[in-house]
């Protein structure tokens, strides 16, 4: 078990002012079987109104808008969490996670990869770990060759990709093998961008695997949102008026709180 301190900041800069800006942000971590959010503070600027709602997948969502012209928009979420990894989360299975979704639709490239993988073996978890290892071997990591619109099948055509692509391909393969799987957005220890991984249904609960790193998700990860694929749990979605070019900057920092640097001075042992 780890105590983690996290900061997640997103800033949009527009080349010209934009207005009538509507947004939906899934940037709020919540308690799951594996993480307990101890402290949480957030700010969104600029905004005329801000509401916290829940979507159909169970994620927390900030929705609101800013009507007046503005050249920057952003949010910051910080907090601390107590995280346990490599453990099943008890949560009933929704049948939608068994079936192909837009980004995980089956195709000839997936079919080929699946043939190479051969027959499914063992339990859901054992098979998922085997698929993850196989994918990690056969699909090199390369930033910049795929984008947020790339589907699992397309990523395989390109032959390399990033965490989003690893997750989509793994989900497509697993669902095809009868293993329910879902897409997870979140943060990982260290500094960088947000990360994506996979949760599989073992038969009793959900278990998280990180195919980009070929790792079981341990207590260095914080989950933000989940869905059938990327499209269901986009972290920030916006629509505005104005003829501007936008530049996005994402900053994520997650660190372990050592006993002596624990903000609240609690004894962690």
């Amino acid at each position, binding site marked *: 078990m780890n105590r983690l301190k996290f900061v997640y900041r997103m800033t949009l800069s527009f080349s010209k002012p934009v207005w009538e800006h*509507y*947004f*939906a942000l899934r940037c709020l971590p919540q308690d799951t079987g594996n993480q307990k959010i101890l402290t949480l503070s957030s700010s969104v600027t600029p905004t*005329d*109104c801000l*509401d916290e*709602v*829940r*979507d*159909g*997948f169970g994620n927390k*969502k900030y*929705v609101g*808008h800013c009507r007046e012209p503005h050249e920057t928009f952003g949010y910051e979420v910080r907090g601390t969490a107590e995280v346990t990894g490599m453990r099943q989360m008890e949560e009933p299975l*929704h*049948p*939608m996670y*068994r*079936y*192909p979704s837009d980004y995980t639709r089956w195709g000839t490239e997936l079919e080929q990869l699946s043939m190479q993988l051969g027959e499914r073996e063992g339990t859901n978890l054992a098979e998922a770990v085997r698929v993850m290892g196989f994918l990690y071997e056969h699909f090199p990591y390369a930033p910049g060759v795929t984008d947020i619109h790339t589907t699992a099948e397309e990523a395989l055509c390109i032959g390399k990709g990033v965490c989003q692509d690893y997750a989509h391909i793994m989900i497509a393969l697993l669902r095809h093998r009868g293993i329910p799987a879902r897409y997870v957005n979140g943060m990982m220890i260290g500094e960088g961008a947000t990360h994506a991984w996979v949760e599989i249904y073992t038969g009793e609960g959900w278990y998280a695997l990180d195919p980009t790193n070929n790792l079981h998700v341990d207590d260095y990860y914080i989950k933000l949102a989940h*869905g*059938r694929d990327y499209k*269901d749990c986009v972290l920030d*979605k916006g*629509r505005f008026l104005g003829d501007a070019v936008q530049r996005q900057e994402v900053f994520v920092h997650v660190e372990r709180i050592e006993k002596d640097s624990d903000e609240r001075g609690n004894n962690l042992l």
Partner: protein
Amino acid sequence: MRELIDHTEGINRLLARYGVKFGLYKNGTFHEQLFPFDAIPRVISHEQFLYLEKGLIQRVNALNLFLEDIYGEKKIIKDGVVPEEFVFSSSGYLPECEGMTPPKKIHSHISGIDLVLGKDGEWYILEDNLRIPSGASYPMIAREICRQASPETFRNNPIVDNRNYAKMLKEVMAYVNTGGVPVIMTPGRYNAAYFEHSYLAERTDSELAMCTDLFVEDNYLYFRDYRGKKQQVGVIYRRISDEYLDPMTFLPESLIGVPGIMDVYRSGHVAIVNAPGNGVADDKGLYYFVPKMVKYYLGEEPVLKNAPTYLPFYEEDRKYVLDNLEKLVVKDVAEAGGYGVIFGNELSREKLAEMKHLIEKESRRFIAQEVIDFQDMNIMEGDEPVPRKADLRAFVLSGEETKVWASGLTRFSRNPDSFVVNSSQGGGFKDTWVLSR
């Protein structure tokens, strides 16, 4: 009735003046075409209407219960009555509606149920339309003009007045209203049913709003009227499909829709007529299961029959379909409006083999039905009555009670060899008379 037929040309001219048109997208461009009216009405006897009414109310009630169940407890799946893949891999299923109940638990407020009368004298349900069934205003306005053309026809025959549709709709909207003004939302005039949107707004005392007249603030929906005054909206009869409803939830690149409306709806702050997510119940694949839903939810025998339907998904049915394809009609479950309907008897030998292969490969994608030999109805072609295929869209409204509108849209095919009567495939329409005794 003779008088009406003599007035056909004049009635059609008036309909054109009123703007009774049907818009179509063909090969990427928008065409507006007249929806030709034929003066010979479909006449439904009083007894027959009582029978239809009973069956339609039962069917729509079961469909509403199904929708409530699917987005809630999912009992029908747990009990093995409907296989889950038909529900959760349907493009009409919206996870964004999971775990929520619309105001007054009504999902399908306006249901357009398409039926045909077989040569055997039986009515068969062809499909259920629970998303945004259009067409009610065509017979409404045609009746008005017919009444002007020949008032004596309506004085001398016991025809139930159909001018109450807007009143029925208004009652439904008032019943589910969460507190605010009623609004009818249209994507604008380049829409197949724009004529109807404006007509209904006028008749239901609702505001006719374009998407840009509506906005969300603090998780409530507001309408800005022409003076710039802002009013809270309690019920919205939207005439745009689910995927365009909210760019923040569905298609972000969509220019129509109201950003944030889904969150307002999920929070229970507005009623949407019809509710989003209904597509899962009128999916052509789910159609097969509707009689089972009637038994499951209501414990009753279904009054109205489905056309005999086979699901290639089930091995036994698949075998039958592959052996008898040349006499069946195959429907692609993902397509609507008469698109994706294939008649086995019209396929060449190669196409037949191709179709069989496709059915084997993608068995979940298709349903197959016996071709129902339905009764012809006469239409006037010049001075000659000629027989044509026709169907009936009945409108069922669900508010405090479920009611069937004593009229309906009778559509006919102008092509003597065609069984497809959808208005998007270039047919015409007739008035539908329900007799009061």
